[in-house]
Structures are given as C-alpha cells and as structure tokens.
C-alpha cells in the first residue's frame, strides 16, 4: 500500500514534469507502464504487429494530451483507458471484417497458428497432453470470438490481467456494477460456447 502511494506520488511528479515539456519524465512514465500495455494488447489481438500499433498509438496520444491530464485518475488508469479504447476499435473492425481467425501474424508478417501458443513447454509433458492443451486453446480462442468487444475486454482485464472490477469500470468509463454485469454475460456466453464446442 505504501509502495502504491509512493508510486502514485512519483507519477504525479513525473506527470507535472512532462506537462512542463520534460521529455525524459514522459519517457520514464512510458517505461513504467509500457510492459503492461503491450501485454494487454498482445494477448487481446494475438498479433505482434497490431499490439505494437496499439502500444505506439496509445503512448503517442498520451504524449499529445498529457497537458490535459487533470489528475482525476491515476496515470495507470488513464493510459489503460487509451489503450483499451484502441483495442476496442480494433476488435470492432475485426468483427465487421470477420477476419479474426486462429491464424495470427507476427511482426515480420509471417503467420503462425494460435495453437502454438498453448503448447505445453514443461519438460515431461507428453505429446498427448500437449495435443489436448492445444485443442483446448483453439476452442477457447473460438469461444472468445463469440463475445462482443466490450465483453471480451472486461473478461480480458478481469481473468487474464487480474484487474479489480472497480478499476475496470473506471478504465471503461462506466460503473463497477455495469462491469460486473458485462463480466457475468461474457462468462455465461463463454461457458455455453465451450460446452457446444466439446
């Protein structure tokens, strides 16, 4: 708790410095949060290229608008809000184009199968077990596609990124109650989808 308060205080100083035009202070802010932003974008989009684009656009937006930051929320919430909005835009576009498949692209434009990501790398993992995990991973990816972008986002932030629902509500500019309901709907859909795939 003391660490969080300390970090928040440091952020406040860094933001004030960045607002005065200190580029090094802004870069320091980037380095504190960029790993988390890239992780979120990559897990959601499953594409290195898209994740890098979102990462880049999110921090450029933050840089351009740092002067308007009014300390009404933490920098963490603010940068996550920017990044999640960009992710939502991308998920919506993909939904329209219906191009979101299990095959994703890496930074060099090469394609690889989502199944590779869920292979069990532990020593001693049997090929059968590995195959089962890969199959389950593919089913999960399929099930996740049944969610609306917003349900997908709430589920991602809760289940995979471990954020509190109160924070998720704040990031998505909504209430904790709405985030709860969205999570419930998403979870129900996923369970039904996984049951029907099996």
């Amino acid at each position, binding site marked *: 708790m003391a660490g969080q308060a300390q970090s928040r205080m440091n952020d406040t100083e860094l933001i004030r410095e960045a607002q005065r035009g200190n580029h*090094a202070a802004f870069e320091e802010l980037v*380095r504190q949060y*960029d790993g988390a932003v890239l992780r979120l974008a990559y897990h959601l989009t499953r594409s290195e290229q898209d994740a*890098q684009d979102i990462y880049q656009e999110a921090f450029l937006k933050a840089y351009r608008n740092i002067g308007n930051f009014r300390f009404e929320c933490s920098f963490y919430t603010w940068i996550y809000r920017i990044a999640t909005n960009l992710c939502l835009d991308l998920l919506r576009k993909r939904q329209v184009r219906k191009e979101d498949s299990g095959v994703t692209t890496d930074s060099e434009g090469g394609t690889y199968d989502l199944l590779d*990501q*869920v292979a069990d790398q532990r020593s001693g993992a049997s090929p059968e077990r590995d195959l089962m995990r890969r199959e*389950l991973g593919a089913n*999960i990816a399929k099930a996740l596609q049944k969610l609306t972008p917003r349900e997908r986002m709430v589920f991602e932030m809760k289940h995979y990124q471990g954020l509190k629902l109160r924070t998720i509500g704040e990031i998505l500019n909504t209430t904790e109650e709405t985030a709860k309901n969205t999570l419930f709907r998403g979870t129900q859909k996923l*369970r039904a989808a*996984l049951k029907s795939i099996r």
Partner: protein
Amino acid sequence: MNCEWVQQNTALYLYGELADDARHELEQHIRRCPNCAAELAAQKEFQEQMNALPVEEPSASFLAAARMRLQESLETAQQNRAWYHRLAFDPMAWMRQVRFSPALAMIIFLAGFGGGLGAMYSAKAPITSTSTTPPAEASIGGITSIEKQAGTGNVKVQYDKRLPASVQGSVSDPKVQDLLLYAAKSNENSGVRLNSVDVLASKADDPRVRETLTYALRYDSNPGVRLMALDGVGPFVKQDIRVRNAVLEALLDDSNLGVRSGALHALEPVRADSSVRMALQQLSKEDPSEYIRTESKRVLASMPNIY
C-alpha cells in the same frame, strides 16, 4: 441469499470480488445447497480451463522493438511541436514589437504601400523568365518539377543546383559540426560516414552528437560505422536511456557479431537494468552464437545478488 443470487455471483466469489459478508453467506449457502455447489464447481473448472491460454510477458526483444519505434515517433512529435511553437503566428506579439519599434513599423508601412502600387501597375504584365542564375554556372542537382504555364506557352522548370564549397574549423565549430552530423546520417559514401562518425565520437557528450551516433548505430548499413558509433555512445548507457535502448537493440538484433559483442560489453555497467537483464537471460539460453551465450552468462553471473 437465494440460489439465483449465488449462481450469478460464483464468478465474483472465485475472483475475490465479493465483500466479506457476502462471501461468508455464499459459503454457508453452498454447504447446504448441492445445486449451487455444483454451479461453483463448474465455474471453477471453467476458470481453470480458460488458463490454457496463458498470458505471457512480452519478450525483451519485442518490448525493445516497440520502444524503439515509439521513441522515433516521439522524437518526430517533439520536433513538430518545436517547429509549431517557432512558427506559430502571435499577432499580439507582433503588435507589441511594432509599438516599440517605430523603424520596423515604418518599413512595414512602406513595404505595404510599395507592394500595393506594384500590384496596381504590373498585375497584367506577361511573365517572361524568373530565372536569375544560368544553370551552367552550377551543376544541376536534380529537376524537381516541370509545369506548362496555361495561356502563355511558357514552361516553368524547377531545379536544385549544387555548388562545391568547403569549410575548416574545430569539431566544436557549429558549422563544421552541422556538416559532420549531416554527413553521418545522409552521405551515400560509407567512407565519408565512417570518418564523420569517427570525428563525432569524441564529442559524444553533446546530446545532438549522441543522437546522430545513436542513429548511425541503429540504421547505418556499414558494420564499421555502427561499431565506431557504438564506441562513441557506449560510455553513455548509464546516463542516456535512448543510448541504452539503441545499444540493447544492437545486442539483440544487429546482423554483425562484432557489433553485438561490443554492445554486450557496453551494457555491462547497466546489467542490473530489468530490460538488460531480461535480454541477457534470453541470450544466455537461446542465442545461436556460443560467444554471446557464454558472455551473457558471465555478465549475469557477475551481477550482485539483490536481497
């Protein structure tokens, strides 16, 4: 607390999102209601299943590549912002200047008056030629545009010209330094770039010079130039985060083993930095070069333990 409420909140219970009293009541309910206990077990199984799609931390090279790209965009954004501030027209500032400078006010007035008269008498005069310097006097650097002038039959040819010139002075001389910085980034001849980077390496304490050397380390096609640039910026990995990023990128991605091993040694003073440590850990396990693997292990082993 009824079954419907419990079944809607099993996910929140497992995520630790219920308040203490609600959690306690739910646990009590589960003990005496087999249906809700089954629902909780199913929810738990579902959450465990979903973990088959793991969230992995971005690799050091992926993060480094994203940072480099962002840094370039931020630099461009900074430059644009600086230009905007320099060029932005502030009428009040102009008025203040004119108010305190009667001579300037007079010049603006006369220029306006003269311009008005000129426009009145020459508006319909045919354009003959706007060129003042014959092209033969200077070599032509390139034709940039050719436009037919409607109605007159004239053609407007726009071209760049090159005039040979030289300048002499110390490396600190701003004019000499500008030319060296330009040569290091833009010259097609790698020998010229090498000489330029060699000279500039001794002035790497200047941030502008460092920026150019970092650029050469990242983008120059010639490994000799990249090595020379690395020598110049290497001592600044501690104090300049951009240098650190560029050297880290060279260690991870440079095609030349000499540059990579130079980068590895340059990063030793910042081996405790998390991004450097992650990169070294990755390289010590996976790098195709045995030398890089061994050296990465050595640097990691020399790291003080953090308790």
